[in-house]
């Protein structure tokens, strides 16, 4: 017998993107390099079950004729995208067992599938659905997981990503990040018609929502730690810069900094109460901490050099930033309460724009080597630095909240595209939009 755990799906405001804006600029994600020997597995199309109907049932209460979302297809795509799994195409499957079927494991062993996922999507009525699934070890003929949870129609895609999270964690021991989102900026059109847009999409590129649109460049989007707000810098009003904080659900935004000169590079404190920003109001770029409740500012750096691109470490105790105080841009670390800055990077002549992993152990950055700007990751304890990419104009690295992947911007031919690389450098993904440039990616925190 298998056990079925109860799993309640939380529907937080985080997912309710009640925003204007048409679904354009869908990110297309493809694996450009996966690991050798990706694990073969099979995710069988989920069986569709509807309750028996009574001839008197009003039309609006009838179940959909077919499942509104192909759960298994989403799970297969999620797992394939990691580069670590190689899902069996449904057309090759010899049988399509559901969650209640007896499994004939030999049907899966002949494809070398190490794992098997079967499931059922059941319509409960009134836009409620129940998802049940089981994960098996094919060779041991043993169930590894069994789950059941119910969701509304709007949350079926999200629920599918949760299924992927559970399977991924069981099989790899690492937390999945399939229910997260990505923010990015697109730029399309030339001359007068050039428009910049800030988007939020699911981590698989689905369902982009426009957060704002501007004639002027949008820079440095940054998620609040609870995922409900996004900060960004905008070059508005004929060259004036400002930092905004926008509520994702309502679209309402506050201008939190608009001084003379640079107002940019926002980074949230882990408690969500402050933003570190770059301001040049006192003559040259310095790091400030803005208290968002009282909008009070505190100056953190004091140096004639460029100090910019602050990013908080997850413990909240320090801020890592880019400075050319040593003659070339390098990463420095300063206590967030103020104090002496300590240089972090010594390898190469250009290390900038830090992104810190959620466990606080690794820093991703843009590193110049041989005239090429590439994503590198440094172990904070040992100081060991490793270049992960082979691009020449990489920018804006951003860690996934599980620390497994780093998304970044780069260029392909004349276009700006996004790519993602696993933190071990083995898996590479490419994320493109149908037209224009895409840049400034920021991976969301885990949904709360």
């Amino acid at each position: 017998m298998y056990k079925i755990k109860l799993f309640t799906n939380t529907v937080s405001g985080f997912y309710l993107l009640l925003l204007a804006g048409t679904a354009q600029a869908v990110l297309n994600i493809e694996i450009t390099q996966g690991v050798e020997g990706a694990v073969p597995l099979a995710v069988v199309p989920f069986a569709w079950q509807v309750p028996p109907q009574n001839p008197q049932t009003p039309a609006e209460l009838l179940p959909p004729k077919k499942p509104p979302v192909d759960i298994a297809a989403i799970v297969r795509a999620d797992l394939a995208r990691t580069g670590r799994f190689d899902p069996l195409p449904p057309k090759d499957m010899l049988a399509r067992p559901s969650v209640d079927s007896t499994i004939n494991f030999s049907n899966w062993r002949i494809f070398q599938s190490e794992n098997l996922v079967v499931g059922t999507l059941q319509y409960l009525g009134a836009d409620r659905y129940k998802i049940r699934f089981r994960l098996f070890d094919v060779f041991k003929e043993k169930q590894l997981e069994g789950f059941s949870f119910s969701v509304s129609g709007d949350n079926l895609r999200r629920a599918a990503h949760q299924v992927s999270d559970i399977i991924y964690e069981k099989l790899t021991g690492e937390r999945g990040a399939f229910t997260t989102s990505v923010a990015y900026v697109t730029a399309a059109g030339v001359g007068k018609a050039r428009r910049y847009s800030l988007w939020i999409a699911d981590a698989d590129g689905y369902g982009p929502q426009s957060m704002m649109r501007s004639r002027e460049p949008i820079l440095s989007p940054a998620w609040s730690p609870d995922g409900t707000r996004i900060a960004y810098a905008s070059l508005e009003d004929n060259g004036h810069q400002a930092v905004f904080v926008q509520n994702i659900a309502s679209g309402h935004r506050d201008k939190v900094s608009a001084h003379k000169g640079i107002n940019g590079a926002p980074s949230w404190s882990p408690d969500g109460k402050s933003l570190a920003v770059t301001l040049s109001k006192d003559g040259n770029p310095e790091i400030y901490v803005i208290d968002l409740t009282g909008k009070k500012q505190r100056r953190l750096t004091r140096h004639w050099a460029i100090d910019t691109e602050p990013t908080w470490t997850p413990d909240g105790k320090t801020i890592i930033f880019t400075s050319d105080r040593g003659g070339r841009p390098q990463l420095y670390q300063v206590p967030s309460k103020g104090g002496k800055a300590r240089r972090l990077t010594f390898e190469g002549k250009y290390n900038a724009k830090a992104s810190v992993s959620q466990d606080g152990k690794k820093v991703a950055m843009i590193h110049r080597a041989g005239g090429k700007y590439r994503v590198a990751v440094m172990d904070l304890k040992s100081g060991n630095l490793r270049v992960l990419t082979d691009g020449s104009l990489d920018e804006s690295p951003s860690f996934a909240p599980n620390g497994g992947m780093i998304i970044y911007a780069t260029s392909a031919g004349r276009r700006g595209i996004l790519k993602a690389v696993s933190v071990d450098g083995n898996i590479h993904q490419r994320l493109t939009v149908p037209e224009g440039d895409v840049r400034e990616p920021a991976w969301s925190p885990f949904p709360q």
Partner: protein
Amino acid sequence: MKLWTKTVLAMLPALMLLGCGTSGEVEDETDSGVSSSSSTGDLDSSATTSGVGSGDMASGEGMGEQETGFSGDPLDDPSSLLAKRVVYFDFDQTEIKSDFRAIIQAHAEYLANNNSVMVTLEGHADERGTREYNIALGERRANAVQRLLALQGASASQIRVISYGEERPAALGHDEDSLALNRRVEFIYSR
């Protein structure tokens, strides 16, 4: 005659540089002019700037000479040093190269003699490196020009500094020549 040809040939790269730079600027300025109601002055100045671009060939002979035979605002004289409105920088550098000191001096003198004239110095960087760092680099370049203008008599109240970093390239190519055109500070006059 031979000497003259040689001089012009030697100047050609510089002239081409300036020509390209200014034509990119026109597009940029029109763009930001449209987006803001307060920038009609900038629109005018961009029109002036486009005149400068087409006047480059004429200015080749007259370079270094004073505005002989030109009446009106010296800013409109295509043969004046004031017609040159872009200062270029070396990679990752913010020092003003000696080639551009005479141009900046001409602008400083003009600003000192025309107190009501305002100029915006727009700092830019090439695409290499990170965006926010490049915003800072563009600002530092514009500040370097501002300091030199102020040292030579322009008033701080006449000068506004902004930076677009790598966001508004003058040339769209990724080759070394295009990148050189993008590392710049532009003078945008409003009268």
